[in-house]
Protein backbone atom coordinates (compact mmCIF):
# COMPACT_ATOMS: atom_id res chain seq x y z
CA UNK A 1 0.00 0.00 0.00
CA UNK A 2 1.45 3.38 -0.99
CA UNK A 3 2.08 6.06 1.54
CA UNK A 4 0.57 9.50 1.38
CA UNK A 5 2.52 12.71 1.82
CA UNK A 6 1.00 16.06 2.70
CA UNK A 7 2.39 19.59 2.43
CA UNK A 8 1.04 23.01 3.30
CA UNK A 9 0.05 24.95 0.22
CA UNK A 10 2.34 27.99 0.17
CA UNK A 11 -0.34 29.95 -1.66
CA UNK A 12 -2.44 30.50 1.43
CA UNK A 13 -2.15 32.92 4.32
CA UNK A 14 -2.06 31.15 7.67
CA UNK A 15 -1.66 32.19 11.24
CA UNK A 16 -2.27 30.70 14.66
CA UNK A 17 -3.83 32.72 17.45
CA UNK A 18 -4.74 31.37 20.90
CA UNK A 19 -4.14 27.88 19.49
CA UNK A 20 -6.64 28.43 16.68
CA UNK A 21 -5.33 28.11 13.14
CA UNK A 22 -6.87 30.49 10.63
CA UNK A 23 -6.19 30.11 6.95
CA UNK A 24 -7.24 32.28 4.06
CA UNK A 25 -7.18 30.97 0.54
CA UNK A 26 -4.98 33.04 -1.73
CA UNK A 27 -7.16 31.93 -4.62
CA UNK A 28 -10.51 33.34 -3.53
CA UNK A 29 -9.89 34.72 0.00
CA UNK A 30 -12.17 32.14 1.60
CA UNK A 31 -11.51 31.87 5.34
CA UNK A 32 -11.02 28.52 7.09
CA UNK A 33 -10.65 27.85 10.78
CA UNK A 34 -9.05 24.50 11.57
CA UNK A 35 -10.06 22.30 14.48
CA UNK A 36 -7.42 20.75 16.73
CA UNK A 37 -6.86 17.65 14.60
CA UNK A 38 -6.68 19.62 11.38
CA UNK A 39 -4.29 22.07 13.01
CA UNK A 40 -1.95 19.24 14.05
CA UNK A 41 -2.10 17.86 10.53
CA UNK A 42 -1.45 21.29 8.99
CA UNK A 43 1.50 22.01 11.24
CA UNK A 44 3.08 18.61 10.58
CA UNK A 45 2.49 18.69 6.82
CA UNK A 46 6.07 19.27 5.70
CA UNK A 47 5.87 17.24 2.50
CA UNK A 48 8.54 14.83 3.75
CA UNK A 49 6.83 13.04 6.64
CA UNK A 50 4.36 10.36 5.52
CA UNK A 51 0.80 10.82 6.71
CA UNK A 52 0.80 7.53 8.65
CA UNK A 53 3.83 8.75 10.59
CA UNK A 54 2.12 12.08 11.35
CA UNK A 55 -0.88 10.13 12.60
CA UNK A 56 1.10 7.77 14.81
CA UNK A 57 3.55 10.39 16.12
CA UNK A 58 1.29 13.41 16.48
CA UNK A 59 -2.41 12.59 16.35
CA UNK A 60 -2.50 9.27 18.23
CA UNK A 61 -0.36 10.79 20.97
CA UNK A 62 -2.77 13.71 21.36
CA UNK A 63 -6.03 11.78 21.15
CA UNK A 64 -6.94 8.33 22.42
CA UNK A 65 -7.74 6.78 19.07
CA UNK A 66 -6.85 3.58 17.22
CA UNK A 67 -4.09 4.11 14.61
CA UNK A 68 -6.07 2.49 11.78
CA UNK A 69 -9.16 4.56 12.44
CA UNK A 70 -7.09 7.71 12.93
CA UNK A 71 -5.26 7.18 9.64
CA UNK A 72 -8.54 6.69 7.77
CA UNK A 73 -9.93 9.91 9.26
CA UNK A 74 -6.69 11.78 8.59
CA UNK A 75 -6.72 10.73 4.92
CA UNK A 76 -10.30 11.92 4.57
CA UNK A 77 -9.40 15.21 6.23
CA UNK A 78 -6.28 15.66 4.12
CA UNK A 79 -8.26 15.16 0.92
CA UNK A 80 -10.89 17.65 2.07
CA UNK A 81 -8.21 20.24 2.84
CA UNK A 82 -6.60 19.53 -0.53
CA UNK A 83 -9.96 20.08 -2.24
CA UNK A 84 -10.04 23.52 -0.65
CA UNK A 85 -6.51 24.23 -1.85
CA UNK A 86 -5.11 24.35 1.68
CA UNK A 87 -2.97 21.21 1.53
CA UNK A 88 -1.13 19.44 -1.24
CA UNK A 89 -1.21 15.64 -1.22
CA UNK A 90 0.88 13.17 -3.16
CA UNK A 91 2.05 9.57 -3.09
CA UNK A 92 5.59 10.92 -3.38
CA UNK A 93 7.40 13.30 -1.02
CA UNK A 94 6.57 16.90 -1.91
CA UNK A 95 9.48 19.28 -2.51
CA UNK A 96 9.55 22.24 -0.16
CA UNK A 97 8.63 25.54 -1.73
CA UNK A 98 8.98 28.98 -0.32
CA UNK A 99 6.09 29.48 2.06
CA UNK A 100 4.29 32.82 1.95
CA UNK A 101 2.37 31.96 5.10
CA UNK A 102 3.06 34.01 8.20
CA UNK A 103 4.23 32.70 11.53
CA UNK A 104 2.28 32.12 14.66
CA UNK A 105 2.17 34.09 17.83
Amino acid at each position, binding site marked *: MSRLYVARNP*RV*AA*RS*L*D*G*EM*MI*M*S*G*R*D*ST*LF*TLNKTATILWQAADGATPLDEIVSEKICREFEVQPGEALHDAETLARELADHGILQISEQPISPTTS*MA*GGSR
Partner: protein
Amino acid sequence: MPSTTEVERLNLVIEIGGMPVRLHTSDAAFIAMLQERYSGYVGSSSRDSAVEFDVELIPPGTRPSDADVRVTTRQGRWKIERGDFQAEWEPARGRGWIRQVANPYSIDALLRIVHTLVLAKDGGFLLHSASAIRNGKAFLFAGVSEAGKTTISRLAPPDVTLLTDEISYVRKQGEAYVAFGTPFTGELAKLGENVSAPIDTLYLLSKGPENRIDSVSQAEATRSLLANLLFFAEDEELVQAIFHSAFEFVSRVPVARLTFVPDIRVWELIG
Protein backbone atom coordinates in the same frame (compact mmCIF):
# COMPACT_ATOMS: atom_id res chain seq x y z
CA MET B 1 -13.24 77.02 -32.48
CA PRO B 2 -14.05 73.34 -31.86
CA SER B 3 -15.31 71.28 -34.73
CA THR B 4 -18.84 69.92 -34.60
CA THR B 5 -17.53 66.35 -34.09
CA GLU B 6 -15.51 67.22 -31.01
CA VAL B 7 -17.10 66.04 -27.80
CA GLU B 8 -16.62 67.97 -24.61
CA ARG B 9 -14.96 65.85 -21.90
CA LEU B 10 -16.36 66.36 -18.42
CA ASN B 11 -14.96 65.06 -15.19
CA LEU B 12 -15.98 64.58 -11.60
CA VAL B 13 -13.81 63.88 -8.55
CA ILE B 14 -15.27 61.56 -5.93
CA GLU B 15 -13.25 61.63 -2.73
CA ILE B 16 -13.78 58.85 -0.20
CA GLY B 17 -11.40 58.15 2.66
CA GLY B 18 -9.24 61.04 1.53
CA MET B 19 -8.56 59.36 -1.80
CA PRO B 20 -9.79 61.28 -4.85
CA VAL B 21 -10.93 59.30 -7.87
CA ARG B 22 -11.53 61.24 -11.07
CA LEU B 23 -14.14 60.06 -13.55
CA HIS B 24 -14.13 61.27 -17.14
CA THR B 25 -17.21 61.16 -19.33
CA SER B 26 -18.86 63.18 -22.05
CA ASP B 27 -22.36 62.70 -20.64
CA ALA B 28 -23.50 65.69 -18.58
CA ALA B 29 -26.62 63.89 -17.33
CA PHE B 30 -24.48 61.06 -15.96
CA ILE B 31 -22.22 63.56 -14.19
CA ALA B 32 -25.30 65.17 -12.65
CA MET B 33 -26.54 61.76 -11.52
CA LEU B 34 -23.22 61.05 -9.81
CA GLN B 35 -23.09 64.49 -8.21
CA GLU B 36 -26.40 63.74 -6.56
CA ARG B 37 -25.47 60.16 -5.65
CA TYR B 38 -22.17 61.17 -4.05
CA SER B 39 -23.33 64.41 -2.50
CA GLY B 40 -20.83 65.35 0.20
CA TYR B 41 -18.10 63.30 -1.45
CA VAL B 42 -17.60 65.36 -4.60
CA GLY B 43 -14.14 66.90 -4.50
CA SER B 44 -12.76 69.94 -6.22
CA SER B 45 -12.20 69.39 -9.94
CA SER B 46 -8.74 70.92 -9.55
CA ARG B 47 -7.80 68.25 -6.98
CA ASP B 48 -4.94 65.97 -8.06
CA SER B 49 -6.07 62.36 -8.24
CA ALA B 50 -3.87 59.29 -8.43
CA VAL B 51 -6.79 57.24 -9.78
CA GLU B 52 -8.68 58.17 -12.94
CA PHE B 53 -11.27 56.31 -14.97
CA ASP B 54 -12.73 56.98 -18.39
CA VAL B 55 -16.41 56.09 -18.34
CA GLU B 56 -17.84 54.67 -21.52
CA LEU B 57 -21.61 54.56 -21.36
CA ILE B 58 -23.40 51.92 -23.38
CA PRO B 59 -27.11 51.66 -24.18
CA PRO B 60 -29.36 50.16 -21.49
CA GLY B 61 -29.79 46.41 -21.83
CA THR B 62 -26.51 45.96 -23.65
CA ARG B 63 -24.73 44.04 -20.91
CA PRO B 64 -27.23 42.87 -18.34
CA SER B 65 -26.36 39.62 -16.61
CA ASP B 66 -26.23 38.24 -13.10
CA ALA B 67 -22.55 37.33 -13.25
CA ASP B 68 -20.74 37.79 -9.95
CA VAL B 69 -17.89 40.18 -9.59
CA ARG B 70 -14.41 38.97 -10.57
CA VAL B 71 -11.26 40.91 -9.85
CA THR B 72 -8.13 39.52 -11.43
CA THR B 73 -4.71 40.90 -12.21
CA ARG B 74 -2.22 40.28 -14.96
CA GLN B 75 0.98 42.12 -15.79
CA GLY B 76 0.17 45.04 -13.54
CA ARG B 77 -3.33 45.56 -14.87
CA TRP B 78 -6.50 44.85 -12.92
CA LYS B 79 -9.48 43.44 -14.71
CA ILE B 80 -12.75 44.05 -12.88
CA GLU B 81 -15.93 42.50 -14.19
CA ARG B 82 -19.51 42.01 -13.11
CA GLY B 83 -22.64 41.28 -15.07
CA ASP B 84 -23.41 44.98 -15.46
CA PHE B 85 -19.95 46.36 -16.19
CA GLN B 86 -16.40 45.74 -17.36
CA ALA B 87 -13.40 47.73 -16.21
CA GLU B 88 -9.63 47.75 -16.27
CA TRP B 89 -7.22 49.68 -14.13
CA GLU B 90 -3.46 50.06 -14.28
CA PRO B 91 -2.25 51.35 -10.89
CA ALA B 92 1.23 52.27 -12.15
CA ARG B 93 -0.32 54.73 -14.59
CA GLY B 94 -3.21 55.59 -12.33
CA ARG B 95 -5.56 55.19 -15.29
CA GLY B 96 -8.40 52.88 -16.13
CA TRP B 97 -11.73 52.64 -17.89
CA ILE B 98 -15.19 51.32 -17.18
CA ARG B 99 -17.85 50.31 -19.68
CA GLN B 100 -21.35 50.39 -18.23
CA VAL B 101 -24.88 51.64 -18.68
CA ALA B 102 -25.78 54.98 -17.13
CA ASN B 103 -26.60 53.96 -13.59
CA PRO B 104 -24.85 54.72 -10.30
CA TYR B 105 -24.60 51.08 -9.20
CA SER B 106 -21.78 49.98 -11.49
CA ILE B 107 -19.59 52.94 -10.56
CA ASP B 108 -20.42 52.29 -6.92
CA ALA B 109 -19.15 48.71 -7.19
CA LEU B 110 -16.04 49.84 -9.04
CA LEU B 111 -15.24 52.44 -6.39
CA ARG B 112 -15.60 49.89 -3.59
CA ILE B 113 -13.30 47.47 -5.36
CA VAL B 114 -10.65 50.05 -6.24
CA HIS B 115 -10.62 51.32 -2.68
CA THR B 116 -10.15 47.78 -1.33
CA LEU B 117 -7.18 47.30 -3.66
CA VAL B 118 -5.53 50.57 -2.65
CA LEU B 119 -6.25 50.13 1.06
CA ALA B 120 -4.94 46.56 1.16
CA LYS B 121 -1.44 47.72 0.28
CA ASP B 122 -1.44 50.21 3.16
CA GLY B 123 -2.86 48.05 5.94
CA GLY B 124 -6.44 49.30 5.61
CA PHE B 125 -9.68 47.71 4.48
CA LEU B 126 -13.40 48.03 3.92
CA LEU B 127 -15.50 46.22 6.49
CA HIS B 128 -19.14 45.11 6.61
CA SER B 129 -19.98 47.30 9.55
CA ALA B 130 -21.78 50.43 10.57
CA SER B 131 -19.59 53.14 12.05
CA ALA B 132 -20.11 56.37 13.89
CA ILE B 133 -18.24 59.09 15.76
CA ARG B 134 -19.01 60.08 19.32
CA ASN B 135 -16.90 62.39 21.50
CA GLY B 136 -14.20 62.45 18.82
CA LYS B 137 -13.84 58.67 18.72
CA ALA B 138 -15.01 56.27 16.05
CA PHE B 139 -16.89 53.06 16.85
CA LEU B 140 -17.44 50.22 14.42
CA PHE B 141 -20.38 47.79 14.59
CA ALA B 142 -19.63 44.71 12.50
CA GLY B 143 -21.95 41.96 11.49
CA VAL B 144 -23.46 40.09 8.63
CA SER B 145 -26.81 40.98 7.13
CA GLU B 146 -29.55 41.23 9.80
CA ALA B 147 -26.97 41.52 12.60
CA GLY B 148 -28.24 45.00 13.39
CA LYS B 149 -25.97 47.45 11.54
CA THR B 150 -28.86 49.51 10.23
CA THR B 151 -30.80 49.20 13.48
CA ILE B 152 -28.00 50.55 15.66
CA SER B 153 -27.42 53.35 13.14
CA ARG B 154 -31.09 54.28 13.23
CA LEU B 155 -31.03 54.35 17.05
CA ALA B 156 -28.05 56.74 17.19
CA PRO B 157 -28.77 59.82 19.32
CA PRO B 158 -28.26 63.35 17.91
CA ASP B 159 -24.72 63.77 19.27
CA VAL B 160 -23.55 60.82 17.16
CA THR B 161 -22.16 61.40 13.65
CA LEU B 162 -22.99 58.49 11.39
CA LEU B 163 -20.19 57.40 9.06
CA THR B 164 -22.07 54.54 7.39
CA ASP B 165 -24.72 51.96 8.18
CA GLU B 166 -23.20 49.36 5.87
CA ILE B 167 -19.53 49.55 4.85
CA SER B 168 -16.85 51.11 7.01
CA TYR B 169 -13.68 52.61 5.63
CA VAL B 170 -10.60 51.85 7.73
CA ARG B 171 -7.16 53.33 7.12
CA LYS B 172 -3.98 52.74 9.02
CA GLN B 173 -2.29 56.01 9.89
CA GLY B 174 0.98 55.47 11.73
CA GLU B 175 0.22 53.14 14.61
CA ALA B 176 -3.47 54.09 14.73
CA TYR B 177 -6.54 53.15 12.74
CA VAL B 178 -8.92 55.80 11.47
CA ALA B 179 -12.51 55.38 10.27
CA PHE B 180 -13.81 57.56 7.45
CA GLY B 181 -17.36 58.27 6.34
CA THR B 182 -18.55 56.54 3.20
CA PRO B 183 -21.37 57.03 0.72
CA PHE B 184 -21.92 53.25 0.73
CA THR B 185 -25.32 52.81 2.32
CA GLY B 186 -27.40 49.92 3.55
CA GLU B 187 -31.10 49.85 4.36
CA LEU B 188 -30.90 53.28 5.97
CA ALA B 189 -30.18 54.72 2.51
CA LYS B 190 -28.49 57.70 4.12
CA LEU B 191 -24.99 58.75 3.15
CA GLY B 192 -22.48 58.88 5.99
CA GLU B 193 -20.86 62.17 6.92
CA ASN B 194 -17.58 62.75 5.10
CA VAL B 195 -15.48 63.03 8.27
CA SER B 196 -13.04 60.78 10.14
CA ALA B 197 -11.84 59.89 13.64
CA PRO B 198 -9.47 57.43 15.31
CA ILE B 199 -11.13 54.08 15.97
CA ASP B 200 -11.80 53.43 19.65
CA THR B 201 -13.52 50.03 19.54
CA LEU B 202 -14.81 47.47 17.11
CA TYR B 203 -18.05 45.90 18.34
CA LEU B 204 -19.27 42.57 17.03
CA LEU B 205 -23.03 42.92 16.88
CA SER B 206 -25.60 40.44 18.04
CA LYS B 207 -29.21 40.91 19.04
CA GLY B 208 -30.31 39.65 22.44
CA PRO B 209 -32.61 40.17 25.41
CA GLU B 210 -30.51 42.91 27.02
CA ASN B 211 -27.89 45.52 26.24
CA ARG B 212 -24.45 44.33 27.28
CA ILE B 213 -20.81 44.33 26.27
CA ASP B 214 -18.73 41.17 26.60
CA SER B 215 -15.06 40.61 25.95
CA VAL B 216 -14.02 38.26 23.16
CA SER B 217 -10.81 36.35 22.64
CA GLN B 218 -8.26 37.65 20.16
CA ALA B 219 -8.94 34.59 18.03
CA GLU B 220 -12.68 35.26 17.92
CA ALA B 221 -12.07 38.94 17.24
CA THR B 222 -9.74 38.15 14.34
CA ARG B 223 -11.99 35.45 12.91
CA SER B 224 -14.99 37.78 13.03
CA LEU B 225 -13.04 40.64 11.48
CA LEU B 226 -11.78 38.43 8.66
CA ALA B 227 -15.29 37.11 8.03
CA ASN B 228 -16.61 40.66 7.61
CA LEU B 229 -13.88 42.07 5.37
CA LEU B 230 -14.84 43.19 1.91
CA PHE B 231 -12.32 41.77 -0.47
CA PHE B 232 -12.73 40.60 -4.04
CA ALA B 233 -9.31 40.29 -5.60
CA GLU B 234 -7.96 36.95 -6.74
CA ASP B 235 -4.41 37.88 -5.88
CA GLU B 236 -2.23 35.97 -3.45
CA GLU B 237 -0.07 38.93 -2.47
CA LEU B 238 -3.03 41.13 -1.56
CA VAL B 239 -4.80 38.27 0.22
CA GLN B 240 -1.68 37.84 2.34
CA ALA B 241 -1.62 41.58 3.02
CA ILE B 242 -5.24 41.88 4.08
CA PHE B 243 -5.06 38.69 6.14
CA HIS B 244 -2.16 40.00 8.18
CA SER B 245 -3.75 43.47 8.40
CA ALA B 246 -6.66 41.90 10.26
CA PHE B 247 -4.31 40.42 12.87
CA GLU B 248 -2.51 43.74 13.17
CA PHE B 249 -5.80 45.61 13.65
CA VAL B 250 -6.94 43.25 16.42
CA SER B 251 -3.61 43.63 18.20
CA ARG B 252 -4.10 47.40 18.35
CA VAL B 253 -7.84 48.08 18.55
CA PRO B 254 -10.12 46.76 21.32
CA VAL B 255 -12.77 44.36 20.04
CA ALA B 256 -15.84 43.36 22.08
CA ARG B 257 -19.23 41.76 21.56
CA LEU B 258 -22.17 44.15 21.78
CA THR B 259 -25.47 42.43 22.44
CA PHE B 260 -28.42 44.75 22.15
CA VAL B 261 -32.17 45.00 22.05
CA PRO B 262 -33.63 47.43 19.49
CA ASP B 263 -33.65 50.25 22.01
CA ILE B 264 -31.89 53.62 22.11
CA ARG B 265 -30.47 52.79 25.55
CA VAL B 266 -27.78 50.68 23.88
CA TRP B 267 -26.03 53.95 23.09
CA GLU B 268 -25.61 54.54 26.85
CA LEU B 269 -22.90 51.86 26.65
CA ILE B 270 -21.01 53.51 23.80
CA GLY B 271 -18.67 56.48 23.84
